[in-house]
C-alpha cells in the first residue's frame, strides 16, 4: 500500500515538474514580447512583473525532475547499458552478471546519496536545523542562496540525496524481483500511440481502393484520365466541388 503511494507520488511529481517547467518558460517568453506591445494598462501591468527568475526556476524544476525521473526510470527499465556480452550468457552466469550490474547501481546511487546528504547538511541545513531547535550552531554556517530566486541552495541541492536514495531503493527492488522471478523491467523504445492492429487492413483497403480507381481509369493516372475524360467523371470520382 505504502509502496503504491510512493510509486504514484513519484509519477505525479515528475509529470507535474515537466508541465510546470514548460508553462514557466512559455509564460516568460510571452511576457518578454507582450510587455513590448503598447496596450494601455496591460503593458504597465506586464512591465511591473519581473520574470527574470524563470530560467533559474526552470533549471531547478528539471534537475528535480531528472533526479526523481532517474529513479522512476529504474522501475520502467529505461536505463540501458551495453548488454551485448550479457545477452550471450545463459542461466546462472547471466543472472550473476545482471545482479552484479544491479549491485553496482545500488552502490553508486547509495554513495552519491550519502555524499549528497553530507554536502547538503554542511552547506546550510545544519545551521538551519540547529537554529530552529535552538541549539548551538557551532562551526556550521548559514548556507548560500541561489542568484535569482534567493532560495537556500541546500534545499535546492537536496534533490541529489533524495533522488539518489530513491534510485538506490528502486535498484534494490529490481534486484529482489529479478532474484524471485528472473524478470527485468524493460522499456519499449518503439512504442507509438494510435497504431492499432486493425490499421493494416485499413491501409490495405485504401490501397485496394486506389488500385480499383486505377483500373477504372484503364491504367491511367488521375491526371491523364482527366485530360482524356473531362468534367463529368472528374466530379463523380472526387465527389463534386
Amino acid at each position: 500500500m505504502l509502496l503504491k503511494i510512493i510509486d504514484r507520488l513519484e509519477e505525479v511529481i515528475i509529470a507535474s515538474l515537466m508541465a510546470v517547467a514548460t508553462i514557466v518558460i512559455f509564460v516568460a517568453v510571452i511576457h518578454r514580447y507582450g510587455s513590448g506591445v503598447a496596450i494601455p494598462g496591460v503593458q504597465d501591468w506586464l512591465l511591473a512583473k519581473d520574470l527574470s527568475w524563470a530560467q533559474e526556476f526552470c533549471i531547478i524544476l528539471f534537475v528535480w525532475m531528472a533526479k526523481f525521473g532517474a529513479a522512476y526510470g529504474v522501475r520502467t527499465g529505461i536505463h540501458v547499458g551495453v548488454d551485448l556480452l550479457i545477452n550471450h550468457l545463459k542461466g546462472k552466469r547471466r543472472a550473476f552478471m545482471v545482479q552484479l550490474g544491479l549491485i553496482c547501481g545500488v552502490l553508486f546511487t547509495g554513495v552519491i546519496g550519502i555524499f549528497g546528504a553530507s554536502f547538503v547538511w554542511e552547506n546550510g541545513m545544519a545551521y538551519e536545523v540547529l537554529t530552529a531547535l535552538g541549539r548551538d550552531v557551532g562551526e556550521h554556517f548559514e548556507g548560500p542562496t541561489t542568484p535569482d530566486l534567493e532560495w537556500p541552495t541546500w534545499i535546492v541541492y537536496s534533490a541529489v540525496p533524495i533522488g539518489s536514495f530513491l534510485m538506490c531503493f528502486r535498484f534494490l527492488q529490481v534486484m529482489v524481483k529479478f532474484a524471485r522471478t528472473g524478470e527485468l523491467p524493460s522499456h519499449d523504445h518503439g512504442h507509438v500511440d494510435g497504431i492499432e492492429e486493425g490499421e493494416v487492413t485499413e491501409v490495405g483497403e485504401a490501397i485496394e481502393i486506389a488500385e480499383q480507381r486505377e483500373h477504372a481509369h484503364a491504367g491511367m493516372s488521375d491526371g491523364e484520365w482527366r485530360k482524356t475524360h473531362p468534367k463529368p467523371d472528374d466530379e463523380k470520382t472526387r465527389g463534386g466541388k
Partner: protein
Amino acid sequence: MSALIIFGLLLVLMAIGMPVGVALGLTVLTFMFSFTDTPIASVALKMFSGIEKFEIMAIPFFILAGNFLTHGGVARRMIAFATAMVGHLTGGLGMSAVLACALFAAVSGSSPATVVAIGSILIPAMIKQGFPLRFAAGTVASAGGLGILIPPSIVMVMYAVTTNSSVGALFMAGVIPGILLALVLGATTWWQARKGNYPRLPAASWRERWQAFRKAVWGLMLIVVVMGGIYSGLFTPTEAAAMSAVYAFFIAVFVYRDLTFKQVPKVLLDSANMASMLLFIIASAVLFSFILTSEQIPQDIAAWIVDMGLGSVGFLIVVNVLLLLAGNIMEPSSIILILAPILFPVAVALGIDPVHFGIIITVNMEIGMITPPVGLNLFVAGGVTRAGLTEMSIAVLPWLYAMLGYLIFITYVPEVSIWLPRTLGMM
C-alpha cells in the same frame, strides 16, 4: 597511464551491462578514491551542477514536443502527404516511405518511434502491393534515422552542450546534409525499385496534394517554430524548444485531436522518463569529462595525434572508424557524451570546424542506428515485420552502403555543412 586505467575501468564496467550512467559514475568514483586526492564528496555536487545549464534543458522540452506528435494520426498524415507527392515515382510507396520517415522523424525526434509509426502502416501496405519484405523493411529502417540529422535534433543538442558549440548553428548546419541524405536514400530506393520493377501508385492531382499538405503542415510547422525562432533571434534554443512543446501540445489536442486531455499526463510522464534517463547520463558524463580534464587526458591525446602527423584527413578517417565501431554497440547519446570531449580538442587542434565536426558525428550516429548488433532501428523494424536481426541486417545493406558513401562525402566536403549557417551569419 591514468588514461589506460580510466578507460580500462569504464570498458570493464560497461561490459558487465550496467546502465551507461552508472558505469561512468562508478569509474570516476573508483578512480578518484584510489588514485587522486581530490575531495571525493564534491562528486555529489557535480551530479547537480553538471546539468545546471539552461542549454541542456532544451533536451526535455524537445522530447516533450516530439512525444506530443509521436502518434499514429500524425504518421498517417505524413504518409498521406508523402504518398501524394512522390508515390507516383519509380519506387512508389518506397519513395513515400523515405519522405514520410524524414518528415515524421524530424517532428517526433525519435528514430525507433519513426520506424514503428511509419513502418507498421507502410510495410504491410508495401508487401500487399507486391514489394519484397526486404525492400519494404530496409527502406523504413534506414530512413527512420533521418530525424537525428534534420533539426530539431536531441543528438545535436548533446554535442553542442558537450563541446560548448552553438545549438542554433548546428541545427542550421544540419538542414542541407539532412535533405541531401534523404535524397541519397530516395535515390537508392529508386534505383532498387527500378531494378526490381516494383509497382507505383497513380499520380495524385495537385488538389489532392494540397489537401494532404494542409493536413500535414500543422505538424511540420514545428520545425518552422524552432528554426525560425532561433534564427530570427526571437528565442534562445531552449526557449524555442519550450515554445515547440507548447505548440505541439496545442496541435495534438486542439487541431489534430489525436490526444485527449486525459492522455496528456501520460505523455508528460513518458517524456519525463526519457528526459531523466538522458539527464542522468549527462550528469555522469560531466563527472567523467571532469576527471578526464583534470588528468589532462584530452590534451595528451590531442598532442599525441598531432605528433603522429595524421593531419585532419587521417584523423577524420580514425574518427569515423571509431564512431562506427562505437555505434555498433552503444546508442548515440552515450557515444557523444563519452567520445566528444576526447575527440573535440583534437579536431580543434587540427583546424576542423566544430560545427562540421558535429555534423560528421551526427551522420555517424545515424549509420549506427542501422548497423548490427545494436542498431535500434533494425530491432524495431524486425519487430514490425516479425523478421530476425540477420534478415534485417541484410535488408538494409543497399542503404547502408549509400550512407557510408555519403559519410565520406560529408566528411571531406565541409562546405555542405557550414555553408548555410555561415551564409546566415550564425557562425
